[in-house]
């Protein structure tokens, strides 16, 4: 083994190598990921989509909510929520593992990889999973006839955008967590649960009293849902609100990643 070596190059865009490792890690759970991606929409579509949908169309008629069928109404919301869930799982668990359980981030950081590279790689890994989940979900929605409007495909990129923005924030959040028991309780019960229920997922947000609508306004799911409904079947929103929805998610994405990049570096080099 040679000891005299010339100057070594630091790999450019190191996050791609972390992504490579994340994909390998995910491949070990490939069938679990696929099963979740298929079962999750099936269960929702059968129980709520068909169950509640039938109730609605029997009572109000086929143009049930917002002038479209119930399935068409909830499709963008379900897509976005699946993106958010997939992105969250794939940032939170690897981050806990990386810093605490298996400490793999410390191994990565003893190579030329920096905290920002590692955070970026984990985020990109989560995006791969998100794209996969949303892809499978949209195929199933299509098969159920929930993607029947001419622009319904637009719900796909919007959902991925929502997953990215929420994933970025959760990546930042998870990078501060030392005691995971509390973390999962807080996230599950007080963030994801209420977000799903109060984001206008199953009924228009303005049905709620104004005080409760607040939860929707701060939820990326609501912003994505509004955008998705606008794009897929022309749900009426003002041009200003379109800007607000996009800006809200963009700010979450940028600020989340920025904080995550900084905190990863800080925690690794304490």
């Amino acid at each position, binding site marked *: *083994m*040679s*000891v005299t*070596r010339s*100057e*070594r*190059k*630091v*790999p*450019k865009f*190191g996050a791609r*190598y*972390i992504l*490579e*490792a994340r994909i*390998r*890690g995910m491949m*070990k759970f490939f069938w679990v990921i696929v099963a979740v991606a298929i079962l999750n929409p099936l269960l929702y579509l059968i129980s709520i989509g068909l169950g509640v949908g039938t109730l609605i169309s029997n009572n109000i008629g086929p143009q049930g909510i917002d002038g479209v069928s119930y399935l068409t109404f909830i499709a963008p919301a379900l897509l976005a929520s699946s993106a958010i869930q997939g992105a969250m799982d794939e940032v939170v668990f690897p981050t806990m593992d990386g810093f605490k359980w*298996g*400490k*793999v*981030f*410390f*191994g*990565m*950081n*003893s*190579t*030329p*990889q*920096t905290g920002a590279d590692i955070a970026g790689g984990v985020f990109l890994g989560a995006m791969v999973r998100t794209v996969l989940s949303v892809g499978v979900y949209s195929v199933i929605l299509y098969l159920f006839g929930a993607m029947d409007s001419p622009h319904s495909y637009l719900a796909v990129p919007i959902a991925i955008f929502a997953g990215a923005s929420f994933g970025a924030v959760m990546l930042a959040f998870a990078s501060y967590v030392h005691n995971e028991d509390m973390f999962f309780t807080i996230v599950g019960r007080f963030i994801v649960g209420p977000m799903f229920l109060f984001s206008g997922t199953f009924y228009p947000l303005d049905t709620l009293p104004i005080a409760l609508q607040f939860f929707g306004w701060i939820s990326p799911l609501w912003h994505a849902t509004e955008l998705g409904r606008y794009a897929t079947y022309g749900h009426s929103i003002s041009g200003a609100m379109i800007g607000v929805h996009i800006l809200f998610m963009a700010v979450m994405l940028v600020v989340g990643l920025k904080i995550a990049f900084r905190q990863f570096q800080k925690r*690794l*080099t*304490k």
Partner: protein
Amino acid sequence: MSENLIEVRGLTKKYGDFVAVNGIDFHVQKSESFGFLGPNGAGKSTTMRIIAATSQRTSGEVSVLGKDPEIQGPQIRAHLGVVPQQDNLDAQLTVSENLYIYGRYFGLPSKFIKSKINDLLEFAQLEEKRDVKVEALSGGMKRRLTIARSLVSEPDILILDEPTTGLDPQARHILWDRLFRLKEDGITLLITTHYMDEAEQLCDRLMVMDKGSIMAEGSPAALIKKYSTKEVLEVRFGSDRNAEMAPAMQQLCERIEVLPDRILLYSDDAEAVLESIVAGGNHPNTSLVRRSSLEDVFLRLTGRSLIE
């Protein structure tokens, strides 16, 4: 022939009010095997992490391969192999996958890494475990894999933090053998340990650390020569009588250390000391004559034992 790969001056690291490393100076030459010996909390690992560009110093000057780790961390790390105190292998992946992805973190081409994996597996004696998930390996195997992993990038400096802590004696000996081979290959080794036998076996030069400071520096043999006698006599009179016998023992040799369970008598001729104890009418319960070790050096320097 004295090219310094690492130079450290006045290095200090504080965590709040706690001073983990207190203004230390040292240098490491190319192809040298340099050890940090000291108990837990001596500041060894902190020093290593600063050298490895994974921790920020509070003050002082550090140069690794002519670069400042604070400014050129990734550039320095591209030349290092690091074996951390706690294994951080990817438990979900197989043995060979762990080697592969680690090489990728250095940006090495797939072909190059794949061509190295067989040699690394052979070095780590893990050929048969190639496709086994890491979570199924024993502690010793994981350590060997971690060492093999650190070699995938052909590092100029190999940093080993407590490489054999937690391993059984057989696994330790296998590991020492592997490390000795690396030393023979001319890799610069940096090792922290609280095992004196490990330090004696592997290190050309040692720094004895305690409470963030350097207590002594030199080759194992030179340290023993300087801070201890050639031989040591260990006698036990029973825990209640050791202290009582100490003054009488003091007369018979250069220096004594009274430990709770035994008295250590330092002399260049320990047999003769034992004979004079017996001639004086005292009969210890047990007695042992041995060569001085780094443990004695540490005891002399700090008044404490290495492993507490």
